[in-house]
Every structure is written in structure tokens, then in C-alpha cells.
């Protein structure tokens, strides 16, 4: 893989990738016996997510536990309670957005991990950028900076909207936080003298993280299960429904927003504690 044998390297890379490709594509056109990936998905009957959609996971697991006989047939014969938009109140999980109900309720633990990944990688960036000399910031034109000042509040508002409505519409804490961070990035890139105190951001960020974990542990205390929803769920589809999810999504939004802002700033000017 030296400079001279570069083309051979490319050629072999192509061959390697081709072989890997043939191997990886083959299961999709498998005609042999056994279960294989279906060319066309008709419904969610075989998947756990059916019960997420129907919001009857507790019933399903109760049914499996009580049912005698084959494990799979038990899972299929679960009774269905109809969950209807704007009618059902106090469903198993609050959000009308089924993805949100998975992200923050059924599989909330994944999301905690996700927050942690982001936190740890921004921490890693901060550690790497410690002592890195700040690049000189160019003064941008007046139009850009004025435009940015006009845009930033709107961007912030949009970000906040996104995470507050995460349980109803597409969106949530992560996109919302990212949008907020975009606002800060815009300020950075356009006005040369703009800076913020990263310590404050970090405090906000870690406080949000602490509260999220504390809320999760509260679930352990009140409902005997980590991340259990111990607040009431309102009517499905209302803005004031599924309170815990709104709180957590807001915290995530704040956390991700400040985190990404700090991370971007670090890459830009190097990390220093001020």
C-alpha cells in the first residue's frame, strides 16, 4: 500500500469489496430452506414491534406467561385493546408518535446509552482538543453577521418546538438539540467576537444528564423498574400527554444542544476551562 503500488492496491480493494459484496447480497436471494429475509414485508405479525404499535406489550407478556403450550403460538394469540387517536386515555405509553414511545419508553435504556455515547465522544473531543491552539477567527461580512443575529432566535425556537413536540410529531430531543447547536454554530461562524463560557454549558449539560438518570432511578423507586413511567399519561395525541416523556425529551434537547455546541466550539478553538 505504498505510493508506487497504489493502483494495485485499488484493484485488490475492488476485488475484496466485490467478494464481500457477493457474499453479503447472497442471503437476500437465498432460495434454500429455512427462514430468510422476506422480499416484501406484509405486516408486523412476526415482530415484537406489532405490540409496540398496538400498545399492548404488558398484555402480550402476561399472555405468554399464562399461556400453556408453544411459545410462538402464545405470542400470536394476544387480545387487542384498540388504541385510538384522540380517544384513548392512559394508554400503556402516552406518545402518539410510536417511534417516540419506543425510544423513550419501551426501549428507553437504549436512549440512555445513546446520550452516553454522545457525552463520552464530546468528552473525548474535549480531551483531545485540550491545549490545542485556537485558530484565528476571521471577521465575516456584516450581512452575514446581521443575518445570523436575525436567524438565530428563530432557529432556537424551532429547536425548542421540535423537542417539545417529540411525542406527537416527528422529531424529539436529538434533532431539537442539534438544531439548537446549529444556532450556536451559526453565531460562531459569522461573528468573530462571539464566544461563550463553556463551563456554564457543561454544567447545564451534565445537570440535565444527572436529572435524566435521577428520573430513571425514580422510576426504580416508585414503580420498581428503571425508567418506568411514574407520571400519568394524558389522552393520546394531546399536547399535554405523557408528561415524563416530554420532560425527558426536553432534558435531552437541552443536553444535546449544549453538548454539541461545546463540541463544535472545541473543534474550532480548542478546549480550555474558562
Amino acid at each position, binding site marked *: *500500500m505504498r505510493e508506487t503500488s497504489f493502483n494495485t*492496491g485499488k484493484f485488490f*480493494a475492488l476485488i*475484496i*469489496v466485490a*467478494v*464481500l459484496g457477493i*457474499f453479503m447480497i447472497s442471503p437476500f436471494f437465498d432460495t434454500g430452506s429455512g427462514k430468510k429475509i422476506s422480499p416484501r414485508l406484509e405486516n408486523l405479525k412476526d415482530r415484537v414491534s406489532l405490540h409496540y404499535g398496538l400498545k399492548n406489550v404488558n398484555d402480550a407478556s402476561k399472555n405468554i406467561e399464562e399461556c400453556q403450550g408453544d411459545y410462538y403460538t402464545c405470542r400470536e394469540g394476544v387480545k387487542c385493546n384498540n388504541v385510538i387517536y384522540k380517544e384513548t386515555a392512559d394508554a400503556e405509553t402516552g406518545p402518539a408518535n410510536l417511534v417516540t414511545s419506543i425510544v423513550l419508553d419501551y426501549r428507553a435504556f437504549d436512549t440512555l446509552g445513546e446520550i452516553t455515547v454522545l457525552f463520552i465522544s464530546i468528552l473525548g473531543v474535549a480531551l483531545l482538543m485540550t491545549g490545542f491552539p485556537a485558530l484565528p477567527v476571521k471577521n465575516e461580512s456584516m450581512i452575514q453577521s446581521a443575518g445570523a443575529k436575525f436567524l438565530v432566535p428563530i432557529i432556537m425556537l424551532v429547536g425548542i418546538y421540535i423537542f417539545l413536540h417529540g411525542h406527537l410529531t416527528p422529531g424529539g430531543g436529538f434533532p431539537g438539540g442539534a438544531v439548537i447547536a446549529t444556532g450556536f454554530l451559526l453565531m460562531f461562524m459569522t461573528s468573530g467576537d462571539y464566544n461563550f463560557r463553556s463551563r456554564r454549558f457543561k454544567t447545564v449539560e451534565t445537570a440535565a444528564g444527572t436529572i435524566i438518570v435521577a428520573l430513571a432511578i425514580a422510576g426504580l423507586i416508585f414503580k420498581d423498574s428503571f425508567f418506568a413511567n411514574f407520571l400519568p399519561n394524558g389522552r393520546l395525541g394531546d399536547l399535554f400527554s405523557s408528561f415524563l416523556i416530554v420532560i425527558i425529551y426536553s432534558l435531552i434537547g437541552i443536553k444535546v444542544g449544549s453538548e454539541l455546541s461545546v463540541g463544535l466550539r472545541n473543534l474550532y478553538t480548542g478546549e480550555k476551562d474558562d
Partner: protein
Amino acid sequence: MILYSFLFALLTALLSLFIRREYNYIRWILYSAVLASLTFLIYTMNGLWGYSESFKLLSVGSVDFSLNFKVTPLSWLFSFFTTGLSLSISLFSIVKNRHEESERSIGFFWLILSVCNIAIFLSADLLTLFIFWEAMTFVSFFVISPGWTKSFKAVNYYFILSILGAFAMLVGIFFLYSKSATFNIESNIAQLFVLYELNSPQAIFITLMFVLGFFTKSALMPFHIWPAEAHSEAPDDFSSYLSGIMIKYGLYGSILFLVPLFVFISKFSQTQPMSNHIPLFSHILAWVGAITSVVATFLAVKSNDMKRLAAWSTVGNIGYAATSIFILSSMGVAGGIFHIINHAIFKTAIFLSLAAVKYRTHEREMHRLGGLAYKMPVTFLTFLLGIIAAAGIPPLNGYASKWMIYQSLLSGRFPFLATMIFLSSTGAFMYLFRALHSVFLGQLPSKFDDVKEVPFLMQIPMYILMLLMVIIGIFPGTVLLPVNSILKSMNMEEIKVTYTTMYSMLSSVDAPIVFLVFAGSFAFAFILYLIGKPRRHVELLDNYTAGQDPKEFGLTREMYHFALKFYEPFEHMFDKYPRTNTKEFYDSFERKINETGSFIKKFYSSSPRSAVYIFTLSIVLIIIYGWLVW
């Protein structure tokens, strides 16, 4: 009892580490005391055949690790003699190590080594044997090379070969274990015999693994290079332990495991190829022993360093013993065991006297020494008796065992083997007397004018060893009668022997008579020496250079020493024949490994992209492999 005495010894060793360096001798006195008590303990076990002890260790998976000790005639004889010899060596070491700088750890390891030594001989199953075998190998590394750069290079050959051998043995043990589900030696021998009938190649493989393990340790043919390196670079007093005792483990293992197996085969097997009434395998091993002895003799003749010479001589003697053991006759096995013990005694004596010489002169090259006989008479006498025994000259113990070896070879109709053993035995005269002459006789260099005899405490072990050589020489039955009980316990025919007389198929020897004859002739020669013309002392340079100053020709005193290149003509005789240098083979192997290693290292520190490249390539290779075997 056995185990607790071991623990006691280990504890002493551990505690002794805290003794300050200035009080070295206290530590060594402690070690001698421990060794003395161990010797006494083993002595009391004489006759307690079948006494066993077991101690359970961890059991992981299917293997129940436990330590099992058992006293048998074979193990008793070996452990008693080796412990007694190490006691005498440690007496020697008390004074010798008094002013050694890097001594602190040697004694500590040495005591552990002595424990391992006894445990190897007393172990009742293969796993215990292996455990102490490996411990002994590891520990001996530190004794041979106690932080000396030069001896580190020397110990490498020993260490690598021993470890490879030990691992081969391990594989053999566990192949057998997977068949027999026990580590017990007798049942494993029986199992291996059964396997010979059922699946002969596999059985041969297993036996070969054991042979590798034993032969690397005892430095037989392809592995014969390590003693010359390790024995010569080890601490001087330890060389005697190494050469006298440690090199015997392989032969002990052979007697313990291989000989009963081959005897079994030669008695009962219908399927195995036989040659000369013994299994072909065994015959080959006997040949290996004979070839080893011949090769070692030639190499000993060539060496100029007195410790190397003694080391090669050890290899030669191991060769005789191996040959004798593997011809499987009662006489042969008895002769082999007898020779092992005799060799332990006289080689300890030789190395101790060399250590004494080095203690006073700090010199190893023979051509820089000479004429020490008058300065160090006791050392001289020890060395003299040692080489007389080593060369197999009648009144001393070496004669008795060599006689038995010749007798067994001849009566078993192995003419070629016998010729080779004769040849190397003759070679032994060549190099041993050269050593005697160049170190102790001849001209004393002026720088050694104020050399004194070693302190009395160091002389004690020499007296003991001399006494042993003479006593066993006169009364071979002291050793041979226990050897007879070994043969009995191995279900072999006993040899005919009394305290003083040995009988074979062809002839018999009455040792006291032989001793008297030789003592008489010595006395006669001594009288001649006394009444003869008084000798005049001539300086070396006066003798050779006719009064001229050799420095004018760029020559030094050493170059005139007759010991320098003494056997050069003899070496020239073999110049025509192609020489295979085993050491070079091992060295080139090492170089190859290092080259590969550098290549691998280069890959590891190459760019991240090659890492990804190789990663993907390997995945693809696995895929292709999968397609191929599909």
C-alpha cells in the same frame, strides 16, 4: 511427611531472602542444614516401598490436579543419592559464596531446585512429575544465569530446549490421559501398550513425545549442545549440581516410563517390529545414546575450556548410560542406573575440584594453568580420582559400571554399539588426562605462585566424594543391591551380585581383588618414584625457547603451553569429513524467527489504512474458506 518437609524447605528458602548480604554464610549453613535433614528423612524411608502421600490441588474442568508422592526402590535410590550429593555441594558453597556479589538469589533458587529434585523422583503420577519437572526447569534458569549477561546467552539453549521438551511431554501425557483417564504411571504404561496394538502410529507419536521430553533434558543427540554452554557458564559450584544431578532427570524418566514400556512390548507384543530381540524403537534410542557419546567425546577432545570439557564428558557418559538402558537387558538397565549414580559422584567431584581451582586462580582456560598439584594437593587428588573413575580405570567406581555396560552390550550381541562405546571410552582417556596434565601437572605459571589450597570446609565434600568413589569401587554391591530391588520392582530378572563381586554371563569381577592389585601397582610405582633420580625444576620458557625472549616474536607464554591446540593433528584427521554444526542450525533458526518478527512488527506499526486493508482481506478470506468447505 514428604510434602511438609518440602513446605518447610521452601519456607526456609523464603525466609533466607531476608538475611543480609554480609551474612551470606549463615544462609548457606541454613541450606546445608535443610539439605542434611532432607537427606536424613529420605534415608529413613529406605524400605518403606509403597508409602504414598497425596495432596489435592485445584481441579479445573476434567483434570484433577493433585500431588502424589510414592516411595519406590527406584525413586528412593535416586533421591537419596542426589540429595546427599547436593548436601556435599552446599557444604562446598558455604565458603565459596561468601564473597560472591550476586549470590543472594542463587541459594534461594537452589533450595527450591533441591525440593523439585526430590519431588521429581518421588512423584507417583505423570502430572506431579510434570509439575515439578517444569518448576525445576523454570527455577534452574535463574540459577544458571543469576543476572550475568554471558550466562544468559548460554542458558537460552538449555531453557528453550527444555521447555520444548517439557511441552512435548505434556502433550504426550495428555494424549495418554485422554485414553486412560488417569495419570498413574503403571496404568498409563499399560494403556500405551494397548494403544501400540490398536493404533500403532498414534502410540509411536505419544512415545516420541515422551522421548523428546526426556532426551532434551538429558542432552541426547540432537539436543546435545546445551550442556557445553550451560554447564560452563553457570556458577562454578552449581555446574557440579547441573552436571552431576540435573542432567539425569531425562534418564530417570526413561527408566521410569520408557523402559517398562519397551520391556512390556518385547515380552508380549506380536505386532511391533523387533530388532535383536528388543523393540526397534528401543534399539534406535540405544543407537542415539551411542552416537551421542561418540560425538561428545570428539567435541570434548576439541575444547580448551576445562568446564566445557567436563560438560562434554558428561554428555558422553549420559550416552553410555542411555545405550545401556535401552538395550533392556537386566544387566544393561542395572549397569545404566549404576553408571548414572557413579557419574553423579565422580562428575560432582571433578566439577568441585575445577570450582576450587577457579576459586583460587579465577582462570578457566586450560593453557593458562598448570602445575597446581603441589599448591592444591587435595583438589588435585580429587580431580585425579574423578578422572580415573570417569575413564573407567579399575579400582574406582566408574570401572564397575562401565564393565557392566560392556558386559551387557556384548552378551546382548550388540557389537556395533559396543564398539562405539569402546571408542568413546578411549576418547575419554584422551581428554581427561589432558585436563589433568594441563591444569595440575606441568609448569606452574609464576602468577600462581601464591596460590593456596582451598579452605578446609571446602575440602570436606572432596574427601567425602573421594571416599565414595573408592568405597563403591571396592564394594559395588552397596549400590547394586538396591539396584537389584529396583529391577525386582520393575518385574525384571535380577542380576547376580554380592557386596563385592559382580557376575555376568561372560565373566565375573571381584572388586576388592582388583583394588588390591591396582593399589599394589600404585604402591610399586610410588616406590620407584621415591627411589628414582631427583628431578630438577626447569622454567617453561627455558625449556622451549632456548633462552630467547618470546615477546620479541610477538608470542606469549600461553602460546607455548603444550595444552594449547593439543589435539590439533587429531582434529585435522577429521577435516575431510563434512561437519554438521548443530549449534549453527539452532542459531539460524533463531535468526529466521527474528526476521519474521521484524516483519510482523513492521506491519503492526504501519498506517491505519493497511490495518483496515488486512482486516477486510481476512474477512474475505474467511468467506472464501467458507465457500470452499460448503
